[in-house]
């Protein structure tokens, strides 16, 4: 029972209390870059979940054989291999989105969340908890991306997933899309708002 609780907390803690983006402030760069529209944000989130889960498992399996002095290089090679696979899959099955994401899929390799989890968790835990940890942290990242992208696409383009949400009558009445929401600064401010709300709910995170 205690064990099950532990794996549950490994999976669910990163969603809120230990969220990689809004608590540990990691992976901000890609959160700014891919969140102008909802669709690429979702794809990016799924890609990161997949890469993190599998790289965590592989590193965890190899953790006792990786020489300590070259562990970062080994981790990088594993992540790079997985990212290359994801990149190829996206190019094959979702070409438009992969074009929008451009270099940012490739830059998953340098995502601090990945390296952080590999170093901090997968190197010292068994494969199953590592898998859950990877999924949890990837999902924590994905959730923030999706929330940010939701507001940016809704207010910046008036659409969600490419479908027009704000009715035409609004535009006729003088409403217009907020061009600033599409620009990167507003992603930072949106992330800041999420952190603000999150900290005021979780008082123990305030410092």
């Amino acid at each position, binding site marked *: 029972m205690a064990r099950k609780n532990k794996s549950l907390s490994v999976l669910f803690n990163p969603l809120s209390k230990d969220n990689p983006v809004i608590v540990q402030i990691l992976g901000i760069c890609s959160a700014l870059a891919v969140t102008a529209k909802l669709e690429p944000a979702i794809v990016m989130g799924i890609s990161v979940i997949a890469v993190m889960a599998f790289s965590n498992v592989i590193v965890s399996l190899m953790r006792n054989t990786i020489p300590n002095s070259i562990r970062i290089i080994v981790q990088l090679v594993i992540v790079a291999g997985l990212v290359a696979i994801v990149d190829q899959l996206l190019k094959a099955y979702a070409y438009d989105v992969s074009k929008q994401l451009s270099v940012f899929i490739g830059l998953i390799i340098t995502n601090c969340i990945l390296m952080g989890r590999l170093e901090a968790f997968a190197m010292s835990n068994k494969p199953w908890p590592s898998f859950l940890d990877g999924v949890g942290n990837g999902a924590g990242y994905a959730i923030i991306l999706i929330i940010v992208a939701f507001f940016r696409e809704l207010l910046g383009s008036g659409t969600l997933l490419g479908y027009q949400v704000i009715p035409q009558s609004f535009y006729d009445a*003088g409403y*217009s899309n907020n*061009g600033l929401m599409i620009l990167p600064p507003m992603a930072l401010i949106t992330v800041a708002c999420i952190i603000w709300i999150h900290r005021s709910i979780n008082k123990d995170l305030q410092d």
Partner: protein
Amino acid sequence: MKALRKFLDRIKPQFEPGGRFQSFRSVFDGFETFLYTPRTTSTSGVHIHDSIDSKRTMIIVVLALLPCFFFGMYNTGFQHWLAAGETEFPFWDLMAYGFFAILPSVVVSYGVGLGIEFIVAQWRKEEIQEGFLVSGLLIPMICPIETPVWMIAVATAFSVIFAKEVFGGTGFNIFNPALVTRAFLFFAYPAQMSGDKVFVATDPILGFGHTLPDGFTGATPLAQVATNVGDQLNLTSLSGDAVSTWDMFLGLIPGSFGETSTLCILIGAIILLVSGIANWRVILSVFVGGALMAWIANIFQSPTYAASLLSPIDQLMLGGFAFAAVFMATDPVTGARTNIGKYIYGFLIGVMAILIRTYNTGYPEGAMLAILLMNAFAPLIDYCVVQSNIRRRQRRGITIKS
């Protein structure tokens, strides 16, 4: 006046702790200290008391803005009449038209901004600060007359919350709130903030004014410069006549509501300088920096960057440059605080404003971005000035010893 004081004294106990409206204490306090200078003073420590407190300071800035504001009303009407092809300009009709055109923006800007400040003050149980008195008037004055009021509301809310309250309220903000509002509008709604359709009011209001034909366009001189082709500038007013330097000085040209008249801005500057509220170092160095950069640009003029064809005098009088120099750059909160720092800060604002205006063809106007940029650097400038002073005095100490 005595009746007002009596009334305030009578209702005061209800707002004291334990009274019926104690949760609205800061609202009452805000109004009371706005109407009457508070008599209470600090009880501990040594303080120098000035006869003028921050609410009175703000009011003088508002007074200094009034010439520009009244001229803006007249000019709004004037441009409208001119656009309608009239040759008679009845003064009071023009003023009334301009007044009704700007009124909604002023009401919305004050309503939203003060509303947020009051709510935050209640929430934090602090006194209401008065910094918004000036910002609330500045915001409509630096926007095109045709800016929809809901945009002003959104932008004001954004800037009061994100440029001011999150940093701790009045006196703690890094960036000038009015300019943040303008920058927000500029980047969020570029179609409504620039171009040639927004600077002249086109609809009749409450029976004043004319109905202009659809598709009417009236570009500001700077916008005409930005789209100029060839190595001859010809700036025209709405009636098709050439714009002279005298027109630019008086301000009878299309532009944002309050910024067109250099004459009225100078009157405002004199009020600010005589009352000791603005610092002459900043204003002077902004103009020096701007003139120098405009002069250099004029020497190396090329048709690719049409603004470099303007003479330095025209550069300083067109657009929001003079307005920004007098009312925005002198903001004591966001500017540099040391005297040498003020020279550097102002000089760089002037240079940047003309540099952006001339060499970045995407932005016909540069004063806003220049000041926001230098706001970010003001603390660094101060730090360097203070450090160099410390070093200089240390060195002096060493030479005396040896």
